[in-house]
């Protein structure tokens, strides 16, 4: 294994780790949404079903940025295009 390959592999591993930092934003956002949903349930317990399904829908949509980061990390780890460029 050449030095260039080692450098590219190490940089890809670091890059995959950095890509997963994208999980921070959705984590904060989903926590905020869940907190608001808890407040709403406390105010209107009879609308619990609607609130829960709306919250889950919003959370799953907000998650997409984290998923993009995850896809980048998966590509860097399992289908690395940079190694093939050497």
């Amino acid at each position, binding site marked *: 294994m050449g030095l260039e390959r080692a450098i590219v592999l190490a940089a890809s591993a670091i890059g995959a780790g950095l890509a997963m930092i994208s999980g921070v934003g959705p984590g904060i956002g989903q926590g905020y949404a869940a907190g608001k949903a808890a407040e709403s349930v406390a105010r209107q317990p009879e609308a619990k079903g609607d609130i829960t399904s709306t919250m*889950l*829908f919003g959370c*799953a*949509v907000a*998650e*997409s940025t984290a*998923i*993009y980061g*995850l*896809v980048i990390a*998966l590509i860097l780890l*399992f*289908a690395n295009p940079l190694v093939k460029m050497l």
Partner: protein
Amino acid sequence: MTGPRIIFRIPLFGGIPVTETIVNMWIFMALLCALAFWLTRDLKLRNISKRQIVAEKLVLTLDSLIENTMGPGHLKFAPYIGTLFMLSIVGSLSSLLGLRPYTADLNVTLGWALVTFFMIQVTSIKSRGVGGWLHKFIEPVPFILPLNIVSEIASPVSMSFRHFGNIAAGMVITSLLYSALAAASAVLLHLVPNAFIRSIPILQAGLPAVLSIYFDLFTSFLQAYIICMLTMVYVKNAAEE
């Protein structure tokens, strides 16, 4: 973790690979077709069988979900949305049987998202005409055209990546947990003299099931619901313009 295994190759155009994804999906498609066929035999108006009650309940649930989300007059989309939901849920839950879930393959989810994408565009053209559909791209001001095109293309990409990413992430984390538990049980058992007992990864029993409740059951249901919900919302927006 690797991509789906290639089971065999069709000897055409230099060998078309047929992967685990395709084989599993055809099996489950056949099972779903058989289920639908069995549920809808000899339907009656009076004295209905238990089987017919189940079938009617399923159809009514789907119809009421679509009416609640899209409003009345959109029931013609019910077959597509029901199919999407069933295929998605069965595919993601197939990981409980130890199969590789076919929704953890971007080809499958991207295919579904592309079908939805063309459905949105055709609905939009039907409701506004070709001129109105083209005009939508230069609203509110003409120089925003590239942004509008990107945002149209982004919807199938984000829909397919979301479904694929959630199921694939569950698969990766579960396999990481399994290998970690195998290493931990090797450490735990390394003093046992019997080589056969030493090779049993005892910690793998039980613990992954807890994670499986979230990654297999909850995520599967949620993602199937999300992809149907997004389809309904996008199509409704396209139809109402």
